[in-house]
């Protein structure tokens, strides 16, 4: 019972997160401006990270935790670099 419930909920949650990734990537693809893409990129990372967490639950092992942790901790670095590039034209001054 709980397995089936959890299974369905996980499926729905993953689909929702997949949908979120889709929306984010749409922004990345369509723009229109660079900052839109960057925001979409950031959102994609967060959605992906959440998808990882749900996947961890689904497979019942905590072994994917580090991957999610790394996204949470370092996912912003790429975005910051992009933002700095937009702002200053170079990443490290």
């Amino acid at each position, binding site marked *: 019972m709980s397995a089936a419930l959890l299974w369905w909920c996980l499926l729905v949650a993953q689909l929702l997160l997949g949908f979120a990734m889709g929306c984010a990537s749409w922004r990345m693809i369509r723009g229109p401006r660079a900052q839109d893409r960057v925001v979409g990129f950031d959102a994609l990372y967060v959605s992906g990270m959440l998808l990882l967490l749900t996947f961890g639950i*689904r*497979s019942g092992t905590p*072994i994917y935790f580090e991957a999610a942790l790394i996204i949470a901790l370092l996912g912003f670095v790429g975005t910051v670099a992009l933002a700095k590039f937009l702002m200053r034209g170079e990443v490290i001054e």
Partner: protein
Amino acid sequence: MELILAVSIGVLAGSGVWLLMRPRTFQVIIGLSLLSYAVNLFIFSMGRFPVGAPPVLEPGTAGDPASMADPVPQALVLTAIVIGFATTALFLVVLLASRGLTGGDHVDGKGGGA
């Protein structure tokens, strides 16, 4: 699922190959990166389909090949990722040097800023 992964590999490879044949250095480097993804996934796919069976053992035990992903392709992909990263960096710097010395970003080093 096999089909999805296979098609994904194909899409990445196709995009990469397309870019590889373009005339601008930046296109080539993006193409190489995409191709690297495709190849890494390809190597990975050689280990077949191990959903939810990471090759991490319980201490003191031996793993069961039937219930665990093949670790060898994973090790190969790891090496390939590292080497891919290194060569991307190198290619980037060389394309920058080429850009600096030839004034353009054409792969054959011709043309000015065009």
